[in-house]
């Protein structure tokens, strides 16, 4: 289990990043994601990694949270980089390779930022922050209640579905291995994972119905366990985000 990817698992520390208002953290993340996506330059890569590593250091996250990339992913990255190398381009015929490396550094940096948010924010706080963030979209006629309820359920269901999928993958080792078995097994796993996900969805839907329907986005947003405080730490975060955006745009 060591170094496997732990999504949405809170690391219980006493740091300023942990105590930040989750609404501020998710607003910062979304702002950075949106702005940087318009310009995946080396400068953007540097900014993203600076914030991710800086955030992790301030949050005093131990190095052991860092996941080891799956071999499949590493293999895909190597193959893609080789294809980029074959594409040539300036400078010195390395243009394609440099582009691929930049895109990977950019994408993995964004993932690292999201992981830092997940490791420093209790899972139950995320729907509260999302409800607050999506509130303005209500004016555009978007059904924010359904979106937030779906998000809240998805966050709750993710560990269950991941657990079932992991069970299916693990148990597949007991099956006979043939030349075609990786393909057949892949299809079987996909079908079983879909079935498990749908079943979890139905069970959760029934549970929500049984307790009189899902709460509205406003009810979720006003959760008393997630105080809506805005102070100096949140102002510092806003300054960091503003500086990051300015660095990339200007």
């Amino acid at each position, binding site marked *: 289990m*060591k170094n*496997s990817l732990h999504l949405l698992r809170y690391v219980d520390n006493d740091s300023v990043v942990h105590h930040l208002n989750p609404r501020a953290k998710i607003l910062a993340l979304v702002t950075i994601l949106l702005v940087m996506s318009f310009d995946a330059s080396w400068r953007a890569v540097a900014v993203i990694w600076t914030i991710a590593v800086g955030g992790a250091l301030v949050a005093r996250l131990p190095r*052991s*949270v860092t996941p080891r990339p799956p071999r499949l992913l590493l293999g895909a990255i190597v193959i893609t980089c080789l294809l980029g190398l074959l594409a040539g381009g300036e400078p010195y015929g390395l243009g394609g390779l440099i582009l691929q490396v930049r895109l990977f550094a950019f994408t993995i940096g964004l993932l690292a930022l999201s992981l830092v948010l997940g490791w420093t924010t209790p899972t139950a706080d995320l729907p509260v922050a999302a409800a607050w963030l999506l509130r303005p979209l209500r004016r555009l006629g978007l059904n924010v209640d359904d979106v937030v309820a779906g998000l809240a359920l998805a966050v709750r269901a993710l560990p269950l579905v991941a657990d*079932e999928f992991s069970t299916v993958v693990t*148990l597949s080792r007991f099956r006979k291995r043939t030349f075609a078995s990786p393909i057949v097994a892949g299809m079987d796993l996909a079908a079983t994972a879909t079935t498990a996900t749908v079943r979890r969805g139905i069970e959760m839907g029934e549970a929500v119905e049984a307790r009189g329907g899902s709460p509205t986005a406003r009810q979720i947003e006003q959760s008393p366990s997630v105080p809506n405080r805005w102070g100096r730490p949140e102002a510092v975060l806003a300054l960091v985000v503003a500086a990051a955006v300015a660095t990339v745009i200007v």
Partner: protein
Amino acid sequence: MVELRLREVSFSHAAGTPWENKALDRVDLHLASGDRVLIVGPNGSGKSSLTSILAGLVVPTHGSCLLDGTPVADQPDRVALVIQNTRLQLMRPTVAEELSDLASDPGRVPSVVRRLHLAPLLTRRIDELSGGQQRRVGLAGAMARHADLIIMDEPMAGLDRQARGQLLEALASVPHESIVVVVTHDLDACRPILDHGRRGRILRIDSGRVKETTSS
């Protein structure tokens, strides 16, 4: 003669990370052909971790789990695990396809079908089976694979009296040379399993330690 030996087995979930959680602490266990073992204990006592180690799905953090002297994790062909939510592990559309897919030798399937009275279910779709029928098919798959070690996790959970009776009857037909390990919360419902083999044992596990061993 099959021999399963656990020596000083300890296991921690997410070892070396902030989420590390010790589940098993220096467990010793010796099982042999014909043993019928019930593992009981409260939630969070380490039953699931012990099940995963016995099945070779995870490797102990410390110690060893050996089947005839070789790590059980290296011998998936000799181990079968029937999980509580058996539907997850039945991957073919019909019972007949599932059994023929799992069988080590296709010639074994008819005898397994006969012993577990599965003939009426052979053409049925897996999705149409009840929970008890799915567990019987899971057990049939284990027998068709000729597994030396068969592990069942909470086999009686959610079954009515008739389905429990059918499953107990099916478990009674597991060949004596196999080791059968059943993890359960319902000791009374599973107790008849102890009489099916050469030696019946009840292991109580609590806080990651095997506290008591009762032999019958």
